[in-house]
């Protein structure tokens, strides 16, 4: 058992990075946090930049002119991908929080099966859905006119 020495999170930020015995779901948790923080930073900047539309066409076009170019397109695509992941993984987390897709309680008989095994198909399904959304976004950003 982890010795927390009276502090609930002895490992701090580095504790996010290790999956340990939790497996892939723990890395989904890490990615959920990273994408969430990225989206929050982008969102706060987005509110400031897009508020220029309230000052008319010249202000809007000047603001949009400052955020164009291949680097910004790539950045926007990463924001889209972060949104797709965070949204579908968030739905998975809400479903699990509400008790869906976690299986029924069973006798602890060897070989043991945990709730994580019951949750895995949902995790795989939502990752496939996130992948499809990112693919559609990639098509729209980089391929279609």
């Amino acid at each position, binding site marked *: 058992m982890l010795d927390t020495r009276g*502090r*609930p*999170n002895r490992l*701090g*930020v580095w504790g996010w990075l290790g999956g340990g015995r939790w497996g892939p779901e723990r890395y989904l948790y890490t990615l959920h*946090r990273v994408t*969430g*923080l990225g*989206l*929050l930073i982008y*969102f*706060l900047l987005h*509110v400031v930049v*897009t*508020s220029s*539309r*309230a000052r*008319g*066409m010249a202000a*809007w*076009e000047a603001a*949009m002119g400052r955020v164009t170019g291949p680097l910004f397109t790539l950045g*926007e695509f990463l924001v*889209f991908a972060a*949104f797709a992941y965070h*949204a579908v993984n*968030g*739905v998975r987390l*809400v479903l699990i*929080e509400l008790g869906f897709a976690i299986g029924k309680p069973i006798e602890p008989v060897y070989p043991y099966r945990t709730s994580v095994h019951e949750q895995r198909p949902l995790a795989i399904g939502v990752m496939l859905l996130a992948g499809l959304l990112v693919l*559609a*976004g990639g*098509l*729209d*950003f980089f391929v*279609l*006119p």
Partner: protein
Amino acid sequence: MRDQRLWTWHLLAGLVILVFLGLHMAIMHLDALLGLFNPAGGHPVAWDNVVARAKHGFFTVSYIVLLGAALFHGLYGLRNILFELGPGPGLKKGLNALLTVGGLVTFVYGAWAAWAATALARTL
């Protein structure tokens, strides 16, 4: 009890964001595939499209609802992450105040921008 209530609001805000940000992303970033709400054609951020959307009360309301839900969801999520790192009671209080005031100021500014953009678009 208070944290349970805030957590429930966090989940509900997430569902609101799923709907409205999903729509926003589809309009702004899946435009070549779906072509939603861009009546002037071309890029979704072209001024004529921005004006056309701003004229609709639906978009004004949806932007303000999305702004409030996203600020609450994002800043409460940030608060949880920061609190996990074990700050002392004084720092917790300071972080609560900072995030609340920062969220409210951003909400007022963003809501003003959405409302003012609609008012301006209706004069054009």
